[in-house]
């Protein structure tokens, strides 16, 4: 009995390892304000063109609203605005990168998507320590690809850092004296 179970466990483990193998070190890169960024491919579920966005009240400017993704309503974030970069009208190259973290799907609006890159760990430098601007918080590391450097984003921080304060502060203010 135990043997079978161990065998099962091993199989599952192997499977997930295999998955990890194919996804590890892979990043989806996209262009934002002429700079190239990367996000771990394991978070990315799909890439779609820009859609009709329905605004949601009381959101910070970088939350543009929600879209209908095949019957699912998901929020979309303009990453430019998240970084404090100037807004830019959407065009036919504007993409929504749909990522999924902790069962939460969120669309990231980027100028355009470029490619999927292999960036091994030893080619990734820690983010610069300089405290210039707040936007460095979302950076997970700097990936070197040949001569170029890609800014690798921490998807989790991109979604949640600092946003909490804002979201929790809303409705209560009305009911409180």
């Amino acid at each position, binding site marked *: 009995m135990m043997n079978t179970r161990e065998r099962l466990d091993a199989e599952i483990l192997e499977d997930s390892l295999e998955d990890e193998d194919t996804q590890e070190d892979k990043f989806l890169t996209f262009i934002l304000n002429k700079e190239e960024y990367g996000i771990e491919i394991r978070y990315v579920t799909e890439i779609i063109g820009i859609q*009709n966005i329905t*605004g949601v009240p009381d*959101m910070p400017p970088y939350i543009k609203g*929600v879209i209908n993704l095949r*019957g699912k309503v998901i929020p979309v974030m303009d990453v430019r605005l998240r970084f404090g970069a100037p807004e830019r009208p959407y065009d036919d190259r504007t993409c929504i990168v749909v990522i999924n973290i902790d069962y*939460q799907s969120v669309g990231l609006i980027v100028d355009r998507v470029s490619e999927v890159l292999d960036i091994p760990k030893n080619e990734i430098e820690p983010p610069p320590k300089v405290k210039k601007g707040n936007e460095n918080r979302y950076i997970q590391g700097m990936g070197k690809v040949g001569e170029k450097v890609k800014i690798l984003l921490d998807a989790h921080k991109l979604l949640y850092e600092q946003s909490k304060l804002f979201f929790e502060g809303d409705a209560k203010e009305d*009911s409180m004296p």
Partner: protein
Amino acid sequence: MFNGDMEERMEYIKYFVNDSRELLDDAEPQIIAMEEKALSSGEVDREVLNTIFRLFHSLKGSASFLDLQTVTRITHEAETLLDLFRKGQAVINGKHVNLLIRTSDFIRKILNTVETQLSDEEYAEGAGEILEDYQKSIDLITKTSASPNGLEQAGFDEHIITAEMNRRFFEEASEHLDKTEKMLLVLEKSPENLEYADQAFRSLHSFKGNAGFFGYRELEVLSHHAETLLDRIREGEKACDSKAVSFLLIAVDALREGAARVESSGKLEVPGMNEIIAHLDRLAAEPGGNNGEKVCGADECNPEHVPNGGYEKPAENENEVAAPATQILRQVPKTGNSGGGNGEGTGPSGGRNKQPLPAQQVIRVDLEKLDRLLDLVGELVIAEAMVANNQDLKGMELGGFEKAVLQLDKITRDIQEVAMSMRMVPLAGTFRKMVRLVRDLTQKESKKVNLEIIGEDTEVDKTVIEQISDPLVHLIRNAVDHGIESPGERSSLGKPETGKVTITAKHAAGDVWIIVEDDGKGLDREKILRKGMEHGLIRSDGWDLKDEEVWELIFEPGFSTAGKITSISGRGVGMDVVKRNIEKLGGKVNVRSKTGAGTMFAVRIPLTLAIIEGMVVKVGNCRYTIPIGSIKESIQPVADQITMTPGDLEVVRIRGEMLPVVRLHELYKVPPKFTDLTEGILIVVENNEKKGCLFVDELLGQQQVVIKGLSGYLGRVRSISGCAILGDGDVSMILDIADLLSSIEVGRQ
């Protein structure tokens, strides 16, 4: 005992764990109910006792089948103890009840492990304590019992066999025999599938156990012999031919008849038993394989031959005796007091078993599949709207088409309704857990509390059930711990010593309301305000705050008014978690409280995934959906009707009523087409007798919309209850009218 391969075992364990949890869920409230009865009247309800006994017995049966020895041992002890009560050798007391409940908890713990580990070995030691306690309780009873040798006797004294017990035994016996029979019949059709043999064996085994317990020796012996044969078959040691099945069926019939005689006349006799046993034994002793024919002479082994003579002669009573053995029709002998279902024949393929436990005809479906179906139905509704309202059809004469669309619409709604109802589960299970909770709490705090449950049949979506439990536990804890006073305090206040906590569930206007009420001391305004100031939640001393606003403070994180921290509540993590969890479900919680009279928490949860009729309105470029249910009318006001109050509030007079105006474009900061009230449309909305007007640019029309939760990432949004996907695929926000209206109220003060 179990020989299946690994996957099968996993499958069985899965069912076992699920079933056992259900059994325990059933057992717990019964145990508590029994205790209450015993405490109040000093009597034990035999029927309840029997039910509990049976629950543990079923558990034991399944556990031993799966070779879960710890569970088997524990349930066996519980059974033994309960048996003593059944025999009337002792009266159940609180200590026993605690032990039983501890057992239930322990088994639950084991189940959690079994679910993943497929074994309960690691609990073998941990069970020692419980087993010891059982031993002590049992010893105590048997030693002090008036008839010390009562236990040794196989049966028990005549006077203890009540008519009720007989009936129960009979009911259950026929149930087990029916199952055995059914399994034997399918087994005959596919003899290679030994699982059927196994199931037949299990049912027969249960019957044997019961017969043994009741002391019906003959029945026990016969079923034992049949069981032995079945055991060899299911082990693959004996080929399963139609002869073996025939004899087994004969045995089953004989058992049924025997049970019927016991039931009607109290006489224990099984017609032709010895002959049947002889044949069964001979078959069982055969060296297996297909050579059954050789050993057994055609004459004496002809199944039709032997037993008929034995028991087809009707006994002295006028009962209808079972049909000839080869014709396997179930016939329940008519007896005076055996309740309904007499003489109901079921075909050989087996009809429904009538079971005392709430077992319906159900299949288990993966929740994921259900969700997928619901998603698809949602899409279907949208697609249907897209077809029916298609722009290309504008201005065309389409009589036939419209009829067809109408038909499609009706079917779509029906599908939707069915799909939705599949996920709906009654709250009963969740509420029953509260019975247990209240009992534990009152014991710990030596308070007296009566829990009343109203509307436990109210159905809500499964996801709601899963998530409502924790908040409810908190609310009930609070009610008992903070709300209800100690008996002494209560009687000095002129209240009945026993406090009352009520949980009510009901449907109202597309929402589910769950209301937790207590008749305790109520919230303490002064204390809350003091705490509020200490925590910096309010700026002043709050003398000007309305009660409702004060009560809201208890939902703040880290807020707790309990003077001393008790073991169960008072750490101040409760209420904010309650509020957050309920909001996660898109719900709301309101408090009402009156000093000295009690507190009421009303939780309002939307039926998730619901589909509503909505009015789609336009403001600037945005479209909002307003639930039709809350719309009274819509008007285009004339200048005379509009008044501006000094507080900058616009009020519209409609038929003598003064209604406040909410400009949606201001509320949601969207540039509108019209800013003059007389140019746009005012929609009069109502909720809970509060009325107001929403100012919008135009009405776009009424349609059915699928409610989608606003992403959890966005948190709760002011006065928005969710989203709807419109016919053209765009998303529209659904306005939460109740919230909207109450926000004007606050603004008005």
